[in-house]
């Protein structure tokens, strides 16, 4: 009796929710698309009318043809490829080190006392200040760039890992203990799953910083990459190259965040959130 009364409206409500979410999603995309579309049209029109001088702000169509031109001669893919590779490598290294250190600091009070003050002190250094030093140490090749990005990714992932582990509900740990779980089982079956939401948040903000730092790293000295295109555009007085590069950064950055967001939603589907994605 009781279970039926509760579970049946529950399931029907869910399917309804899903249908609504789909409809709402499409509507949201439409609504959110109006303004950018209007801006692009106005921009194009004003550029053609000669209001914006082409050597400062080229028309959207010119930028688009710059991108397609690069795609056709193949240079686009190598620029995008190398930038994505740098972010990916830096992200992987930074996140990995952050997870290891963050877990140690999160689990062991002693480790926190030993390590955390130093890490916090390093955090207060604006990360871009490392750039000259890294170039001095590692040259302007890949290692200095990847290290740079790794440093940027490290801190948000580290902080969120620590707070995720330290913030696990003591009451849930008690349940685990009540069932005789040993320390290892407590970690894998209670603490890690409970810390997962915070950890994933860290990964997403870490990735965002990774994209920020790849620009800095590539501006400093690179012969390839989207950041290099920015420099080229500036030196050859071609704003369309700069804007094309900016747009590519935005698109790829958003795409990578979107992938992480999907992973996050899949992993945290159990969460009871007020705002459904």
């Amino acid at each position, binding site marked *: 009796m*009781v*279970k*039926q009364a*509760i*579970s049946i409206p*529950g399931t029907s409500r869910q399917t309804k929710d899903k249908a609504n979410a789909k409809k709402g999603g499409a509507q949201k995309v439409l609504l959110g698309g109006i303004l950018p579309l209007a801006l692009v049209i106005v921009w194009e029109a004003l550029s053609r009318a000669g209001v914006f001088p082409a050597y400062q702000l080229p028309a959207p169509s010119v930028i688009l043809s710059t991108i397609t031109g690069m795609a056709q001669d193949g240079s686009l893919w190598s620029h995008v490829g190398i930038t994505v590779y740098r972010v990916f490598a830096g992200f992987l290294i930074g996140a990995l080190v952050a997870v290891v250190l963050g877990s140690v600091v999160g689990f062991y009070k002693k480790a926190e006392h030993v390590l955390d003050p130093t890490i916090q002190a390093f955090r207060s250094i604006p990360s871009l200040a490392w750039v000259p030093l890294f170039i001095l140490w590692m040259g302007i090749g890949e290692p200095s760039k990847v290290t740079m990005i790794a440093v940027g990714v490290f801190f948000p992932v580290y902080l969120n890992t620590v707070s995720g582990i330290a913030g696990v509900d003591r*009451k*849930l740990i*008690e*349940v685990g*203990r*009540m*069932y*005789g779980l040993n320390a290892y089982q407590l970690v894998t*079956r*209670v603490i890690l*799953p*409970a810390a*997962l939401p915070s950890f994933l948040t860290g990964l997403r903000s870490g990735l965002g910083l990774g994209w920020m730092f790849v620009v800095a790293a590539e501006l400093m000295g690179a012969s390839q990459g989207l950041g290099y295109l920015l420099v080229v555009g500036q030196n050859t007085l071609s704003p369309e190259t700069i804007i094309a590069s900016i747009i590519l950064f935005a698109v790829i950055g958003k795409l990578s965040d979107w992938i992480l967001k999907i992973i996050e939603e899949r992993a*945290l*589907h*159990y*969460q*009871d959130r007020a705002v459904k994605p």
Partner: protein
Amino acid sequence: MALELKNVGRTFDGQTAVRNVNLSAGEGEIIGLLGTSGCGKSTLLRAISGLDGNYDGEIRLNGKLVDGVQESAGFIFQEPRLFPWLTVLENVTFGLTGKAGEKEKKGREILRKVGLGDSENLYPKELSGGMAQRVAIARALVTSPEVLLLDEPFSALDAFTKMQLQDLLLDIWKEAGTTMVLVTHDIDEALYLCDRIVILRGRPGEVVHEISVGEPRPRPRGSTRLAELKTDILESLDLSRS
């Protein structure tokens, strides 16, 4: 004796929370620990459970000294404390060891018993408070504990759900003959469920009174006998002074 406490006390940083508790429970007995808040009844239960090992005195479960969490004890907390990332069935089978198939079979069986047979794939976010506490009860029972410890298990539920779950608990008791220690501040609940009610009072808390409820179950909730006992308990709690 299924459970025996000798001179049990607990001191936190020099502050004594509860002291000199002597108590025993026979197999299949339901003991109520009743008292106003702060009298150390939950502290006592945590000591019995083995979650809190720093108690004074001696606690024995089935003759074995409690020096850590005992396999023979199950615990139902005030809140359901379900793992939000596990389904209902996974939550129930959390404490089981062995093959997955057998665990699930056991879990489904116990879920049917608590009336949640077709909710096994739901996540805790989709449960009402009463359903969640049913899952918690199932989780505690699935390991077939000999002693079940309950820390105000129904205090967060509405009156009707509370009565339903109290009856559910009695059904389980009838079937499995589990010894239970129930911490509560609800006098009616204690009278409805318990064979004996131990009343704690004061800071630090001490046992001031013990009442045997000799009534056969199921007890009519409004009976005059229970009402008399309630008056008795209220007197010994002496609420006017504390």
